[in-house]
């Protein structure tokens, strides 16, 4: 459903092809266990200070995505925005960070480049773990896991209902945008363009609210009792808990070794 682009507005919708469909051990793992495991892994990796440990965490993240059966090409495409940011940060810190200059290139800061390298290694490792553990569950399954982990009642429901309506709203905007283009609308840096985009957004808002009222009425008629049910209800088995514990050990050990030797 996210395959279509929302017009020439640069929507990244195309990149949102789902990763939650699959049969890997991580796809079959209960979403609650994955949420808890990801919290442990992400906090551990974020505490890393050294480059060796950062590299080890990156390799761990790549191993985890391999275990999730996600191809490196798909993962690389998802890491492009973050790495564009890291490249910019490297240049900026290299040029502006205080400290001794690099011996080979005198106008680049050695400390700035060292910090940028550490951030890049950690950032990519964190994103890989995030993709492998959380993007292999559907959003409704994650919302249900949040509810079952007692992270509130309204927030998981809001997440599930937002995801439910996201595609409808996207289609609505696409339709209105196509109609505007058919009437000769050509986006430029002008007041007319900003007014047109604002009206398209306003119309999308009004239509989405009207549809939401109908959806709410239909849900109530079908006996909706405040719980958004999903077919992805996993069961928490002892074997999965052991698997999750085993997955949490490497990043914790990497971080402990890093902090003790830093």
């Amino acid at each position, binding site marked *: 459903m996210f395959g279509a682009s929302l017009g020439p507005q640069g*929507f990244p919708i195309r990149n949102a092809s789902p990763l939650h469909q699959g049969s890997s051990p991580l796809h079959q793992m209960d979403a609650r266990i994955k949420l808890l495991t990801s919290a442990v892994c992400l906090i551990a990796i974020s505490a890393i200070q050294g480059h060796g440990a950062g590299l080890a965490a990156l390799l761990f993240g790549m191993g985890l995505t391999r275990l999730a059966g996600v191809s490196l090409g798909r993962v690389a495409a998802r890491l492009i925005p973050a790495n564009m940011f890291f490249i910019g*940060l490297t240049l900026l*810190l290299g040029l502006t960070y205080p400290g001794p200059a690099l011996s080979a290139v005198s106008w680049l800061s050695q400390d700035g480049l060292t910090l940028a390298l550490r951030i890049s290694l950690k950032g990519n490792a*964190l*994103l890989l773990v995030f993709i492998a553990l959380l993007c292999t569950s559907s959003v409704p399954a994650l919302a249900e896991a949040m509810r079952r982990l007692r992270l509130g009642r309204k927030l998981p429901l809001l997440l599930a209902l937002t995801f439910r309506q*996201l595609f409808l709203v996207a289609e609505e905007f696409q339709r209105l945008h196509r109609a505007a283009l058919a009437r000769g609308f050509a*986006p430029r840096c002008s007041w007319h363009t900003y007014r047109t985009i*604002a009206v398209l957004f306003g119309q999308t*808002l009004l239509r989405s609210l009207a549809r*939401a009222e109908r959806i709410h009425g239909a849900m109530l008629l079908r006996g909706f009792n405040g719980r958004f049910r999903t077919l992805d209800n996993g069961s928490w088995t002892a074997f999965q808990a052991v698997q999750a514990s085993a997955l949490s050990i490497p990043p914790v050990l990497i971080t402990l070794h890093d902090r003790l030797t830093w």
Partner: protein
Amino acid sequence: MHITEGVLSAPVLALGAATAATGLWLGLRRLEEDRLVLAAALAAVFFIGSLIHVPLGPSSVHLLLNGLAGLLLGWIAFPVIFVGLLLQALLFQFGGLLVLGVNTTAVALPAVLCGLILRPLLARGGKPALVAGMLAGSGAVLGTALLAATALALTDQGFLVAAKLVVLAHLPVAAIEGAVAVFVVGFLGQTRPDLLTCALPTATQGGAPC
């Protein structure tokens, strides 16, 4: 507006998470269960709105629309923006899980503050409402840039130049957001003026205001 994973220090991440948790608690307290579907619709609308790229000179920028969310939703903008940022992390890997608290605070806190200050002006309709739209649209983006810059500067003094650049880069975005917010408020004022006083119109009687 997303700060990527791996950049910020642990104390800054913890402070951002605590602030976001407080804002979420306050927002969810005001969000009645029978308004969840409408709030979700608005969360989806603002999610899609934040993906719209508008031309700016030879390039383009994407909208934030957080000021408009704060203006229409008040404290409820906090959970709405949190859900939008969480979905952006899950679907596009913009931001991440650890940095979600800081990103939510940076985007939602200025939005809610603008909403709380400017909603009386918005409720008057007409030109005052347009002024409220412009101030909220621009002010929330500037607030977001300032908070993101503060998070960077608190992490490491070496990020000061990057922090200044973040604020400078958001100045034209703030101007465009102000203009777009004026046009959206004007459009809503002509078509559904009731939304300017409460964007979640099916609140049960006696329930908390938006």
